[in-house]
């Protein structure tokens, strides 16, 4: 069967059309490639972090660069930890926090409660030498739905000019007879219960097994009772520094990086590394958000070797990628909680243990705070 002139003409016309359509589709594909991996409407990303010097280190370390390279404005807001707000947003499908900087144990809880987007470790950028991220991150830093970023420590800090004699050990922090003055503590059972037991003679390696018992928890609260009237509570990391600045306390628990930053700004506080407690932070992305692709792009960017190394230049928190540590100067490495001299003087918080117990202990802890230790001075007027 031969082609008629009409059919030839039709075939030719179709070929022309297909060629043009293919050209247009190619243009379309080129456009798609330049739009990265996030939705085209994403122009702003809300990232939740810990405020003060810590957030500043993130902005200077990589947030600004991310904004420049991705054309997305990052709105940084502060919080004080916990997963209640995230749980509420995710369950209501009203997610306003796109990316959250968790304490690792909170990330574990949020992950277990299916509140976070899964993050494939293979999607994270490799080290400059090509080492896969999964091998480059320190052990335990990658969760199915969270990516570790820095290690930091809660330490005792004091102003040497405000104390009659410098404390030498954690026990001194709990001894307000020999070391008079008010104490600053973060308003959370974490670290406080561990420290109370250690100050009462429990070895750091046995702390969590003692806390596993009701008697152990009672014992910790009894130790905290000793200094309760002298405690001034803080929530944000910067408040601990402010307590020292304003002379409201003679010693306080504090995040090590905040103290170093304050010293860089002209203060002269000292850190007592004895029994410091090391924590890890991790990026997580709440489910049901509108900007998940952009959030993933942010986490990948923030988790790169370069980003973590750059952040460490602005705050003394240890990057959780081995490759990020390689380029850091020696004097900076020495000030990190993970340095050779500091490491043996502290211990890692047990994130798994806290993820299981934080809820009940937080309730008891708040109850304990509200209950007066001494006979109250101000009762309801009669």
């Amino acid at each position, binding site marked *: 069967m031969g082609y008629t002139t009409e059919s030839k003409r039709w075939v030719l016309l179709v070929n022309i*059309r297909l060629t043009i359509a293919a050209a*247009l589709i190619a*243009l379309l594909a080129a456009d798609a490639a330049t739009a990265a991996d996030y939705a085209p409407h994403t122009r702003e990303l809300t990232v939740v972090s810990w405020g003060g010097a810590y957030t500043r280190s993130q902005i200077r370390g990589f947030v600004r660069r991310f904004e420049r390279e991705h*054309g997305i404005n*990052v709105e940084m807001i502060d919080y004080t930890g916990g997963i209640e707000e995230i749980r509420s947003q995710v369950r209501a499908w009203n997610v306003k926090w796109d990316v959250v900087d968790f304490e690792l144990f909170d990330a574990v809880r949020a992950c277990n409660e299916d509140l976070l987007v899964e993050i494939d470790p293979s999607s994270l950028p490799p080290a400059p030498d090509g080492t896969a991220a999964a091998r480059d991150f320190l052990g335990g830093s990658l969760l199915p739905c969270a990516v570790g970023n820095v290690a930091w420590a809660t330490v005792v800090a004091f102003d040497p000019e405000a104390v009659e004699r410098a404390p030498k050990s954690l026990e001194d922090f709990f001894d307000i007879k020999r070391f008079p003055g008010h104490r600053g503590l973060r308003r959370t059972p974490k670290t406080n219960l561990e420290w109370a037991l250690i100050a009462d003679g429990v070895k750091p390696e046995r702390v969590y097994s003692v806390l596993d018992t009701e008697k152990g928890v009672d014992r910790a609260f009894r130790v905290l009772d000793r200094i309760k*009237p002298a405690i001034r509570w803080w929530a*944000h990391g910067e408040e601990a520094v402010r307590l020292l600045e304003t002379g409201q306390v003679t010693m306080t628990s504090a995040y090590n990086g905040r103290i170093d930053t304050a010293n860089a700004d002209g203060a002269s506080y000292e850190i007592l590394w004895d029994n410091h407690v090391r924590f890890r932070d991790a990026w997580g992305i709440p489910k049901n958000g509108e900007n998940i692709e952009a959030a993933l792009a942010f986490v990948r960017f923030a988790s790169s070797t370069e980003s973590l190394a750059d952040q460490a230049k602005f705050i003394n928190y240890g990057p959780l990628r081995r490759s990020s540590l390689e380029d850091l100067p020696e004097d900076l490495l020495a000030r990190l909680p993970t340095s050779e001299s500091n490491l043996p003087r502290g211990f890692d918080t047990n994130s798994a243990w806290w993820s299981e117990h934080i809820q009940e202990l937080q309730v008891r802890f708040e109850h304990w705070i509200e209950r007066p230790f*001494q006979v109250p001075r101000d*009762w309801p007027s009669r």
Partner: protein
Amino acid sequence: MKLSTFAIALVFLALPCQAQDGDSDIEALVQELEQVKGRLAELEQLRQRVRTLEARLEEANRTSASDDMERRDAALASTSSAPEPEPPAIDIGGALRFTTFANGSVKGQRGKSGLDLFRLSADGSIDNILLSAEYRFYPFMDTLHHGWLGYEFDNDSQLQVGITRVPFGILPYAAHNFWFGVPYYLGLSDDYDLGAKYVLPNGPWNIQLAFFKNSELSNSGDLGRYSYDVVSAGTARNEESNQFNARVAYTIGAGTTCSHELGVSGQWSELYNLDTERRGDMWAAATHLDTRCGRWNFQLEAARYDHNPVNPAGIGANRIELGAFESVYEIAPSGTVGIANVAYNFPLSGDILDQLTCYNDYSVLYKDGGGKDSILNTTGCAIGVGPLFIYADLINANNMVFFGNGSLADGGEDEWDTRLNLNVGYYW
């Protein structure tokens, strides 16, 4: 950009096919091809233009983001921490209380229960301006408990003007129980008057200086008041006027779990007699120790007072009339007061109780002139359960006003009387 290009592609693909008639239309097809090529070129130009516009838009966004970052950095540099949510400037509170008691001295009466009070209060500050006020509704009267405006200075000192607490003896209360102790019934504790008070905390020191023009109500004959004052509602019509107070306290071990407040207080005022229109006077002095050591609290106070009214002839000065709560009674014009209180705050681990403090408050008046002593001894507990606060008191009184025929003046009776008092309040 994707959407714009995609739309152009769809428009193109939706163009109707325009077949030409006849074999000789090859030329026409070539022409059509040329037209399509021209349109494609136009589309490419359009695409380039969209890209240019988008590039300019992105540049504008980057500039804006950079400005935001600069502002944010500046904010971070200038403030060392995130701003805390502001608490409400003025806190509105209140209480609804009920009381029940059984009095051993009233034969045939099993006890009484009922509304104690309903009250509303406002406390707070706007900038350095302070405010505190409380209005009370009792079943038998309503009254302003206190109400003052203040100013807080840079050194944390305060000036309070209005109806404010008289700084005398152990503060804020010289007792733990609901019924207080003897000093309250002599007008020497938890007393409120109209005037100005300056409070200066300075490390372990606390200094309070005050001047009160008169008692809390301008009419000294009005008994609808909360705190006990010399009143002109009886036979001797005297009233308090131009009162000066000074109280100095020093705390040893402030901020530790064992602190001891030592203090001295002085008070002097005129007693103006409405009949003779002459001014007598009244003075009082006290020293106290308030120790809070661990869970224990020990309070000791010794006070002297002396009233010297100028009454009309025929009205002796051996009794002074005090009034409040729509009642009036007499007290010895001078005497010595003693207080010895002890309290213990129990550790709690359950979820129900927030506070359990048990106490024994002892107070006594030794009257000059040989009158029988008046004694109050109260054993009880204060219990906090959420917004509820409960006082459960067993009161033993000897020759005490409101207990049988007891009196704070000379006379009375040497009899012990017992009252079981339960006060349950909901506070918000």
